[in-house]
């Protein structure tokens, strides 16, 4: 079939070319050449390209045709292409800025600050929030959780049998896969043994997400069989541990003492739920009723059938969940199912903070624009003569307008380039200064992509228009005759009003930012002063993992940790030493349900949940957790002694309010329920998941009676510098067993600090932006007043000559400035109240309308503004009549 040239581009070309036979014949020429070419995709591409080139040539350069061709002539202005005139104006702008380096430096610096901050934050927002997850059809992916709202659990990991039942019974769900995350593992290949984080995933997991293997193949499908000894390396671990060796597939990796075959290397990219993992083993998706199906440990990802909706899936899962509750009450009483779009879950609670930061840099940029606009306005007043001369020489209002806009664009462009460089340097610097502060999901992927580039360029152009338009419009309004007349050299009334309005806006916006930053700062200090229940200084912590053949049973592990703790205790400089399976403030840990052993048995869904911790040695003493009643755990609470536990205050007051908990007994659903645990002591509450979480009931076992986990975290309270103990610690562990790695030696103080890393970063950045904004606003105010004073030298001098004293003059100038400031502050307070509402979800222990913050921010900005007014005012009082007359 014969097909004609691409119709749309052809129609466009006809519209762009000169009218009549002239243009039509050019198109027909092109059509003829097209018809002579072999058919196909390349011919169409060629036509489009040639048509665009020809069209743009005419559009930009102009045809230069005059006779009977008005339409065309109109778009070109004086027979010259728009593009050419733009270039000319831009060139002029560059020359003009070179002549005025002060203006160029201040303007570019201000814009660079605004654009830089905005682009930096946008880069992060883009990577974390906007960029879809790097998976195949990511909109089909959901995270599936179990929830028990009565017990305050809204996103819990799931039981594998339940997950399989969801897949079988919910029609909208095509497939589920899951991951068991944050397993620590000791690997020995290649080189020294080291402890790394690993995950186990169902064999279909990567296929389900749509992630490719960079090398080798995915795991075998039978998780129980062949796949049990296979591992997939993460791209990062492959790089760091194997130096990106392409021959790694087929080699052996010793994991916890047993050999595994490396079958594949994952392609780079964010791994939902397993991002921190060095490698992946397999875990089977058990069925309900299987012997091995117990407990909740699986992070579940589901892929919906094409076109299915999350709301519909949730309805289906509600039904499935009810069926599972009835069929398996022991496991499922009280538990429901919850589906969340995977993207939403991954981004989680970081979204609000990021949007707030982006909005605040947006405000910073607006203030920067206002400042530069102000600067240009003051220059514009000086340049009115230049403009008037140009006008009288024949330049039209439009010419002047174009010229000024081009100047602004040059300024903005230079500032923008500088700003992007600043953004890059700033984020790098910040990442180095605050490691761990960027613990945002997917932030590692942050970088300059097309969207960031488009954003940076549009922000820059917009900035240029924003601050350039005002002075340019002003210039058009000015009549040449008035200006050339010497009397008209002062600033026009309208310009003065405009500049006043800009100052009001700047003050209002920066007050908003200051209040926001103040609220976050107050919230942050509240967060830091929260009683965590521990005394983190001077405590050293480190992790020891016994995973592997030699310490297969609890007895052997327990003996190892007993000896380790004993030997450390004998070292000089150690005040107290103990160990716990999980560190407080890290967020990770084990939990299970429990009840009063001697009370009537409540229905299963009403059993409360407690965090379970297993301790060795003098853990409470080392971590600084105070004993409230009874005794702590002792060396005599061994495997052959009666089963005892220490509980925290939350648990005691929940089960036995007002009564003595010591001597009471608990049934704990971790081990046989018919064997009770006697409470021998009560310790104060510890905020296990960070300072902004409420304490929950906790149960502490002796590790000697419950070696549930093969690893422990040492806690060593030092009499001197705790960091100095790290080599000693490493030495002792090495002497006991050279195959056991000591990992993550850290000061407990830094663990606590990291728990508040994100609010710290948000507070720091918002504080920085607010300070810069306030400074810009104050400088802007100062500029406006100085200028006004300079313009009124003659008037002031005359006043002084006829007897006005310095005080009067000062107060006149200050009054002029402070009127603007007060209006700005009033508007700012209203804006800040609205902003506070947006911020409220980020605040901890502070009201969004916190009077202290509001008054403080207003006072600071007011005082700074006053200083900015007094300085020019004071200068005004130094004017002598002689000076005033000379200046005229």
């Amino acid at each position, binding site marked *: 079939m014969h097909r004609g040239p691409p119709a749309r581009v052809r129609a466009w070309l006809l519209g762009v070319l000169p009218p009549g*036979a002239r243009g039509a*014949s050019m*198109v027909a*020429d092109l059509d003829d050449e097209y018809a002579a070419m072999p058919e196909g995709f390349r011919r169409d591409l060629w036509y489009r390209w040639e048509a665009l*080139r*020809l069209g743009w*040539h*005419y559009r930009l350069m102009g045809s*230069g045709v005059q006779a009977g061709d008005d339409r065309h002539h109109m778009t070109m202005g004086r027979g010259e292409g728009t593009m050419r005139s733009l270039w000319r104006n831009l060139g002029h702008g560059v020359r003009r800025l070179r002549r005025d380096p002060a203006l160029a430096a201040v303007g570019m610096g201000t814009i660079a600050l605004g654009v830089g901050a905005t682009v930096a934050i946008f880069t992060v927002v883009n990577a974390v929030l906007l960029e879809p997850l790097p998976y195949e059809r990511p909109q089909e992916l959901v995270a599936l959780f179990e929830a028990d709202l009565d017990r305050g659990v809204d996103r819990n990991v799931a039981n594998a049998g339940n997950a399989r039942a969801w897949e079988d019974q919910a029609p909208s769900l095509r497939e589920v896969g899951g991951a068991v995350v944050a397993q620590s593992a000791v690997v020995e290949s290649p080189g020294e043994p080291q402890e790394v984080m690993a995950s186990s995933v169902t064999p279909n997991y990567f296929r389900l997400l749509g992630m490719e293997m960079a090398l080798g193949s995915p795991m075998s499908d039978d998780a129980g069989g062949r796949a049990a000894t296979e591992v997939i390396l993460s791209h990062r671990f492959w790089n760091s541990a194997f130096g990106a060796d392409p021959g790694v597939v087929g080699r052996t990796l010793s994991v916890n003492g047993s050999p595994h075959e490396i079958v594949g290397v994952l392609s780079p990219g964010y791994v939902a739920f397993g991002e921190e993992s060095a490698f992946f083993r397999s875990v089977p998706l058990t069925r309900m009723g299987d012997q091995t199906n117990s407990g909740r440990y699986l992070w579940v990802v589901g892929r919906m059938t094409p076109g299915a909706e999350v709301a519909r899936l949730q309805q289906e899962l509600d039904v499935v969940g009810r069926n599972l509750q009835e069929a398996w009450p022991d496991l499922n009483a009280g538990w429901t199912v919850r589906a969340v779009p995977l993207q939403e879950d991954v981004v989680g609670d970081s979204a609000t903070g990021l949007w707030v930061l982006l909005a605040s840099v947006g405000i910073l940029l607006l203030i920067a624009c206002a400042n530069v606009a102000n600067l240009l306005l003051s220059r514009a007043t000086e340049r009115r003569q230049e403009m008037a001369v140009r006008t009288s020489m024949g330049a039209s209002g439009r010419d002047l307008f174009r010229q000024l806009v081009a100047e602004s664009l040059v300024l903005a462009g230079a500032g923008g380039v500088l700003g992007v460089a600043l953004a890059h340097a700033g984020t790098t610097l910040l990442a180095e200064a605050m490691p761990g502060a960027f613990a945002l999901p997917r932030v590692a992927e942050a970088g300059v992509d097309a969207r960031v580039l488009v954003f940076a360029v549009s922000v820059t152009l917009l900035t240029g228009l924003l601050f350039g338009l005002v002075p340019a419009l002003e210039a058009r309004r000015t009549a040449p005759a008035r200006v050339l007349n010497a009397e008209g050299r002062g600033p026009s009334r309208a310009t003065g009003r405009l500049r006043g309005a800009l100052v009001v806006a700047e003050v209002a916006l920066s007050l908003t930012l200051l209040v926001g930053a103040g609220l976050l700062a107050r919230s942050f200090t509240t967060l830091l002063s929260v009683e965590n229940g521990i005394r983190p200084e001077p405590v050293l912590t480190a992790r020891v993992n016994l995973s592997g053949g030699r310490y297969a049973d609890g007895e052997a592990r327990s003996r190892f940790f007993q000896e380790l703790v004993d030997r450390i205790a004998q070292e000089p400089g150690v005040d107290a030493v103990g160990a716990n399976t999980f560190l407080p403030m890290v967020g990770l840990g084990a939990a299970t349900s429990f009840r009063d052993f001697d009370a009537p048995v409540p229905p299963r869904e009403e059993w409360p949940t407690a965090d379970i911790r297993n301790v060795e040695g003098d853990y409470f003493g080392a971590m600084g957790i105070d004993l409230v009643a009874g005794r702590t755990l002792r060396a005599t609470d061994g495997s052959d002694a009666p089963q005892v536990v220490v509980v925290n205050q939350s648990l005691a007051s929940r089960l036995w309010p007002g009564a003595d908990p010591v001597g009471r007994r608990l049934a704990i659903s971790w081990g046989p329920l018919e064997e009770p645990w006697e409470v021998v002591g009560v310790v104060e509450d510890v905020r296990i998941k960070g300072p902004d979480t409420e304490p929950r009931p906790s149960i502490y076992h002796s590790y000697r009676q419950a070696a549930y986990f093969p690893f422990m975290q040492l806690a060593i309270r030092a009499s001197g510098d705790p960091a100095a103990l790290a080599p000693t610690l490493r030495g002792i562990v090495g002497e006991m067993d050279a195959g056991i790695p000591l990992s993550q030696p850290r000061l407990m103080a830094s663990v606590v600090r990291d728990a508040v890393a994100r609010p710290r970063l948000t507070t720091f950045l918002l504080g920085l932006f607010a300070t810069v904004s306030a400074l810009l606003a104050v400088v802007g105010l100062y500029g406006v007043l100085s200028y006004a004073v300079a313009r009124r030298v003659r008037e002031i001098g005359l006043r002084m000559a006829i007897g006005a004293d310095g005080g009067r003059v000062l107060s006149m100038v200050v009054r002029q400035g402070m009127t603007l400031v007060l209006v700005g502050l009033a508007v700012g307070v209203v804006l800040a109240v609205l902003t506070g509402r947006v911020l409220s979800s980020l605040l901890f222990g502070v009201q969004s309308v916190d009077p202290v913050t509001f008054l403080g921010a207003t006072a600071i900005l007011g005082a700074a503004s006053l200083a900015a007014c007094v300085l020019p005012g004071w200068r005004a009082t130094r004017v002598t009549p002689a000076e005033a007359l000379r200046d005229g």
Partner: protein
Amino acid sequence: MSPNAFLGEFEQMVLLAILKQGEHAFALEVRREIEESAHRKVSRGAFYTTLDRLERKGMVEWAEAEPTARRSGPLRRFTVTPEGVAALRTSRRALETLWNGLDLLAEEG
């Protein structure tokens, strides 16, 4: 002599190509003639705008010719006006004057 009589190199090539094509001086043929004899690609936009410019200077005229049945639009046949021919002559003379005495040098280069 009017300033319009000075011709750029590309303008000369266009005029000469039109003259050479004679009855067949349609845009496509003229452009092909230039490309073949000068061994260089000619941008469509530059070519048409040059034709427009030469027309404005009064050196080129065009009239609609009878197009073939398959052609999608009008067909222009270009002719060089006497002014155009005069300008070509002027340019050639000027160049020849300049070239005089430089033949040896040119051959060595």
